[in-house]
């Protein structure tokens, strides 16, 4: 009845207005159209943003000294720096800058731009500045530590000796993008170093330049014809805001979109079965974790912490809600990084959990409030844990909502969420999960998950994490991380890791060269399209 009525109405209006019927059309072969959710995209200043979708845009508008290819994510390769040397003491990095690069403005890219950009990142001091500040650079010291010695040479000195890879990998992050300092000199307002201008514009040298950006609607990037590696095959890349997963699925099925980036498990499964698209699962450097408040008398008991390990249905979740979102990984170093182990020996075992609770002195269980973010798949995982905990006698009052603020303030009992790091090195994860130099409330080390959980990480683990970051010998470093991995599990951590995150995208089969990148740097200039 309803459908008939609507068809009648639609037909009447269509006839009355003479609308040409027939809407579906494949995207042109020289344009890439990406369906995405832009809700979290705010501003395009590479030294300010800290978000996946915006990072992918910035990765293509700007370039960096170092490049990490998606298939060799831990191998630093030349980008804007055609070569580099590291001094014998391991503290001085000298980069030779390419001489054939021009910005979208037409200005040549020189070492002065590199100097100005890296100093800007540190001086602005916003979220992504951690990528350099964690190695000891500060607003006060950066002018002396990062300097251009001539138009093609940049010297970077680190205050301490770090493993060289940590510095080089940091210089591949989107946050270390190089900006056109001459062009931005005119755009500065009240000493903001062009920050206001760059929210909605670009000043880069990447393969694409920004043509249009309307927040939560549309972004159009145009190929940069003078790009030093040659003009990209895709004349335009268009990002369109589709907040609904089902809408993205229909669009890519119909061929109106080439790539869909935010899809639910159900839609991903349906698309995979449809055969028109390829589902890319890109591993990320983060985990789905369960945080147990260590200021709580019950939850700080190591046997209780251990019991939670047996309340997660690893295999059941792997085949269902986590099929596209995660890979089972119970140890603390993500797969693919030095020191990672694939020993996932924990299984769902209610009897074992009950035994541990009895040994801990809680044979009848206990009740706790459990905060979880009400998004897929975090909430489904939380519901599964809640159901299993109930079988072991633990009553969890599951409360969905935005509780991240309370977690940061240590105002919680149990909390679960998903983390994500951008540095393809074990240190990035360990610094947050396994270091906590001052566990007092006053220290406010809110950036660290271990501090938020009030977990006083065993000193030997923290020392090993520090030693590994400073270790210059690759083999010794890998061995150290393997040791840390085992020690972390043996410590029955307050942060229970279950799955390594993966980001799933659907890409139409005629699209080649669009490769998901673990550090959010998916390139558009490598994309080509068949008929």
């Amino acid at each position: 009845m309803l459908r008939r009525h609507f068809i009648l109405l639609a037909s009447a209006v269509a006839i009355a207005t003479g609308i040409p019927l027939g809407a579906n059309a494949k995207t042109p072969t020289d344009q890439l159209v990406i369906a995405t959710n832009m809700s979290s995209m705010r501003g395009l200043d590479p030294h300010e943003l800290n978000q996946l979708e915006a990072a992918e845009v910035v990765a293509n508008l700007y370039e960096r000294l170092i490049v990490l290819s998606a298939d060799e994510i831990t191998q630093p390769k030349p980008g804007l720096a055609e070569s580099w040397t590291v001094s014998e003491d391991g503290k001085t990095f000298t980069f030779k800058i390419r001489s054939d690069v021009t910005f979208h403005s037409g200005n040549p890219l020189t070492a002065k731009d590199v100097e100005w950009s890296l100093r800007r990142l540190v001086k602005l001091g916003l979220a992504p500045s951690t990528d350099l500040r964690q190695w000891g650079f500060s607003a006060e010291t950066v002018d002396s530590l990062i300097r251009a010695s001539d138009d093609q040479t940049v010297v970077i000195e680190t205050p301490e000796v770090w493993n060289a890879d940590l510095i080089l990998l940091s210089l591949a992050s989107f946050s270390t993008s190089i900006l056109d300092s001459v062009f931005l000199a005119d755009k500065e307002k009240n000493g903001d170093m062009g920050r206001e201008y760059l929210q909605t514009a670009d000043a880069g040298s990447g393969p694409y330049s920004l043509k249009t950006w309307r927040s939560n609607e549309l972004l159009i990037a145009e190929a940069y014809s003078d790009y030093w590696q040659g003009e990209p095959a895709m004349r335009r890349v268009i990002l369109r805001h589709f907040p609904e997963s089902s809408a993205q699925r229909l669009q890519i099925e119909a061929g109106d979109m080439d790539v869909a980036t935010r899809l639910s498990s159900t839609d991903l499964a349906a698309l995979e079965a449809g055969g028109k698209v390829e589902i890319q699962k890109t591993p990320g450097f983060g985990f789905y974790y369960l945080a147990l408040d260590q200021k709580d008398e019950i939850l700080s008991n190591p046997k209780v912490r251990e019991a939670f390990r047996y309340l997660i249905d690893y295999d059941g979740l792997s085949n269902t809600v986590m099929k596209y979102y995660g890979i089972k990984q119970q140890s603390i170093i993500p797969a693919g990084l030095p020191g990672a182990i694939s020993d996932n020996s924990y299984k769902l075992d209610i009897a074992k959990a009950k035994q541990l609770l009895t040994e801990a002195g809680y044979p009848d269980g206990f009740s706790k409030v459990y905060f979880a973010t009400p998004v897929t798949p975090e909430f489904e995982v939380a519901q599964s844990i809640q159901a299993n905990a109930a079988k072991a006698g633990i009553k969890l009052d599951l409360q969905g909502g935005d509780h991240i603020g309370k977690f940061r303030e240590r105002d919680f009992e149990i909390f679960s969420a998903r983390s994500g790091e951008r540095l393809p090195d074990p240190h990035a994860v360990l610094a947050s999960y396994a270091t906590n130099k001052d566990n007092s409330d006053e220290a406010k080390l809110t950036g660290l998950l271990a501090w938020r959980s009030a977990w006083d990480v065993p000193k030997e683990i923290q020392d090993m994490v520090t030693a590994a970051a400073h270790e210059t010998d690759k083999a010794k470093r890998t061995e150290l991380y393997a040791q840390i991995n085992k020690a972390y599990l043996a410590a029955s951590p307050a942060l229970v890791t279950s799955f390594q995150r993966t980001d799933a995208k659907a890409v139409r089969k005629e699209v080649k060269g669009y490769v998901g990148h673990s550090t959010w740097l998916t390139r558009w200039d490598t994309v080509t399209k068949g008929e």
Partner: protein
Amino acid sequence: MTSSQATAARSPDSSKLLSGLRKVATSLAVILTTLLGLLVITFVIGRLVPADPVIAAIGDQADQATYERVHKEMGLDRPLYVQFGAYLSDVVHLEFGQSHITKNPVASDLARVFPATIELATLATLIGAGLGVPLGVISAVRKGTWVDHLGRIVGLLGYSTPIFWLGTIVILVFYAKFGLIPGGGRIDIYNEGLVEGPSGSILLDSILAREWEVFWSALHHVVAPALILGYAAMAYLSRMSRSFMLEQLRQEYVLTARAKGLSQRSVVWRHAFRNIRVQLLTVVALAYCGLLDGTVLIETVFAWPGLGQYLTSALFFADMNAVLGSVLLIGIISIAINLLSDIVYRFIDPRTR
């Protein structure tokens, strides 16, 4: 004419003017109080929302120093009343602040998204009123017949069908299955940027620019969401029209008109319908106001970049400048529409003058 006569002649005019001015002043006071109340309530609710705007802006993993710095930059370290006072002072100077999400001035964001919603809501209201009012009138005139039953069923379905469900089904059938309508947005991406006109309505601007391909593309995109919203409006308006008409048809003047031998058409449209115009205008104005801020679900389903989507996104990420600006705009437009309908009453109903 003596001076006393002149004074006597002027006094009624002066008192009329005075009374008129008093009315205007009262209306202005009511409008300003309403808008202030709206801002206060929205501001308070905004502070009760658990989302932290600072974390929304800098990300979960940022350290405390960054958090405190951005917290201060956003002015959130000041007492609430100071924040509100500063906002009011800005509003008086027509400054609505910057959106933390889009990084644009809120005023320019609203200038971009509001025309999209106006375009959709206006078309939906035209469809709703154009179909709903005649349907209601005919249902009332033919009360108890199959026409009436059909009208009521159509109305009931429109009332009870969730709009997002209907939108999803329409996309599934007419876009995914038959390819008759576009899958979302205001225009084909290949026509983007060809028309950037004065009104912000792509339909109007493309006509002005004589860009007919853009016009057809925009029309093609707006039909489905406008029809769905129009259907919901039609359901409401047909029920109201039917009820108003039934009341009029029971009046004695209708009996008199029929007794005079007037034709059915004349009795219905020239006599009874004339008397429901004021009530109808009120409900059409209300329906229009409702559509302006109620298009959010359909905007989400059809990826329509309008005010509803902007406001929802702002609420999710605690972007208070954007929320307050949007609410203020909706408030102003609602008041303006009500004022306009009051003025129109005076033209169509002499009793209200």
